[in-house]
């Protein structure tokens, strides 16, 4: 089987790794900004699909299908983002006789509309957050709902997802501005300006359940993930399992998730996102009809390879896992390492990565999308890699993550590594005492200067010594005992003999 990956960055690399392990050959697609990107370097074939802006390359269905035809790809994995939840793309694959590694266009469509999916869930007996179940386009309709339900509310893009196109509205006077911005973002990000509104669940936790379905009607859940820690509605740290979910609740959430997936005849990997209020009441939020960014924490704790499962399911195989025989083992945490400067309000920090020291050793998994010498382009999501740690307990996993973050050094661009280092030390994080507003509330605290742990003097001394060495032209010679030059000569010799 030959698989084209219609994506870039770490997730394209992740899918290529799975394909290679299954013996499938891989085709990367790349924009003009990505000719030397890691996903291209790891693929067996690579096809250009247009200029740097996504709209002209990674979102161009015609060019991606053209690349698939030219290379004879049998299947396309969309990753997440870009075309992963694009109904037209899934349909175009079907029409072109190419396997779309994901759910059916019908499932995507049903869950893609936040309002339609809310109707479907209600019908399937899955509790949803109180709010509108029909998309609206006028401010008056939103205002009417707000007056009726009372503030605070959330205004959301009906076609939205992934933390984009939504606003929290606390007071009536902010409503119009929020409505306008969400409408504008909905139009610009999702090509559909329809919005809706929900009651705001105060201090919630964001819990999601992984599901896997095959073409033979089997759907299982693979436990929950804790995705409460978000910054501006974007997940930044994810865990498996959730500290607030016990075995009984896990069963209950799993059953609700399977019911939700069955309501749309789901197959492939998918995620049911839920909100849990402080009263432990759980509401359906949305279904992501694709692989999630945070899928590795589930993989490490449950011992499954979700991408390989997707590939097997796409080939028509039955799910080989039996939910009753599966038990979570240990704890896993993922930190999303971004090219952003936490000290400057997380401003993007694209540019040349001049140096990386990668974290290694026991219990450390790094799903990377970059390398030393790579120039992080300005056009795409600034995720550099996902650092995932696994250990026997949550406390050990946090300690391991701290250790890994200390090893992880990047020079040339700023990253969110210092932010995660501070987070791993935060007393409330250690106690798993947080809600979705935790990071935004504690940002000042988390970004406080750490003062070099009393090593400022030593750092200044180091700079002075290095300046001195340079002024004296004291340079360690680049030692080079490498043997290959001579081997090369010997081979050349042999060639001639």
């Amino acid at each position: 089987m030959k698989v084209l990956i219609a994506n870039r960055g770490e997730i394209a690399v992740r899918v290529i790794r799975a394909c290679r392990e299954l013996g499938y050959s891989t085709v990367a697609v790349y924009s003009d900004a990505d000719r030397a990107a890691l996903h291209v370097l790891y693929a067996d074939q690579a096809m250009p699909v247009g200029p740097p802006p996504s709209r002209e390359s990674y979102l161009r269905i015609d060019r991606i299908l053209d690349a698939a035809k030219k290379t004879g790809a049998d299947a396309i994995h969309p990753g997440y983002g870009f075309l992963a939840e694009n109904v037209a793309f899934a349909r175009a694959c079907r029409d072109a006789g190419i396997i779309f590694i994901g759910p059916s266009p019908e499932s995507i469509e049903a869950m893609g509309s936040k309002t339609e999916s809310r109707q479907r869930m209600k019908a399937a007996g899955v509790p949803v957050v109180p709010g509108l179940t029909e998309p609206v386009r006028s401010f008056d309709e939103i205002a009417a709902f707000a007056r009726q339900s009372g503030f605070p509310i959330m205004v959301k893009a009906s076609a939205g997802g992934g933390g984009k196109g939504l606003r929290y509205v606390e007071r009536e006077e902010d409503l119009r501005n929020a409505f306008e911005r969400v409408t504008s973002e909905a139009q610009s990000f999702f090509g559909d300006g329809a919005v809706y509104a929900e009651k705001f669940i105060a201090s919630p936790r964001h819990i999601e359940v992984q599901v896997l379905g095959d073409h033979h009607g089997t759907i299982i859940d693979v436990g929950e993930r804790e995705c409460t820690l978000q910054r501006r509605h974007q997940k930044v740290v994810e865990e498996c399992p959730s500290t607030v979910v016990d075995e009984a609740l896990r069963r209950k959430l799993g059953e609700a998730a399977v019911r939700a997936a069955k309501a749309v005849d789901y197959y492939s990997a998918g995620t049911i996102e839920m909100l849990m209020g402080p009263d432990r009441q759980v509401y359906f939020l949305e279904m992501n009809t694709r692989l999630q960014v945070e899928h590795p924490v589930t993989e490490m704790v449950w011992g499954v390879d979700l991408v390989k499962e997707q590939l097997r399911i796409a080939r028509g195989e039955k799910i080989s896992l039996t939910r009753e025989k599966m038990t979570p083992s240990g704890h896993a945490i993922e930190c999303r390492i971004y090219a952003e400067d936490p000290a400057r309000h997380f401003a993007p920090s694209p540019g040349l990565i001049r140096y990386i020291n990668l974290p290694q050793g026991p219990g450390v998994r790094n799903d990377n999308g970059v390398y030393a010498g790579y120039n992080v382009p300005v056009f795409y999501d600034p995720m550099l890699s996902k650092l995932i740690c696994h250990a026997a307990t949550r406390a050990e996993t946090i300690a391991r993550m701290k250790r890994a973050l200390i090893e992880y050094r990047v020079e040339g661009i700023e990253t969110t590594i210092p932010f995660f280092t501070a987070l791993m030390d935060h007393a409330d994080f250690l106690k798993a005492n947080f809600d979705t507003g935790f990071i935004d509330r504690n940002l000042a605290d988390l970004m406080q200067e750490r003062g070099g742990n009393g090593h400022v003097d030593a750092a200044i001394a180091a700079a002075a010594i290095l300046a001195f060495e340079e002024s004296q032209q004291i340079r360690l010679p680049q030692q080079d005992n490498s043997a290959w030059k001579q081997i090369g000569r010997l081979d050349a010799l042999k060639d001639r003999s």
Partner: protein
Amino acid sequence: MRFIARHGGEEIPIEVERHGSAYRVRMADRWLVADVVNAGPYLRSLRLEDGTQLTLVHDRDGTMHQISLADSIIHVDITDPLSLKRKGREDELGAGGVIRALMPGRIVRVMIKKGDSVRKGASLLVLEAMKMENEIQALADGVVDQVFVEAGQTVESGTELVHLAPLDR
């Protein structure tokens, strides 16, 4: 050899001399004995007399050194008082509130105009890059002296966006 280090608003006179295979460093009235070795590009290991070992990533831009420790980043300016380099740098930087684009992108909105007084932290403009809208804020109180860009314009990294004159000028 003598240097002036500038860090956190302080000026620290520094003297570095060789001490066997290590160095003796006087910082104001403190003394340190340390050796520093290369561990590949950018990575350095500093070791003090009591064995304390710090692995640091070192980078330099002119006289400005960036030293990244495990959990903190320290910027320190090291100048040789005998050279004139520092003078040049000060002239370049002295003007103060030149706000530049730190990344290429598109100006989405400009919220200020020439003559506006702004407070530290006030939003000046919005730059869209990497799928995100980034608010560019004033780093200090000031008066808008010049606005070099307008909404819709694409800018390169380093483009001057706004010039703020200090309020106390």
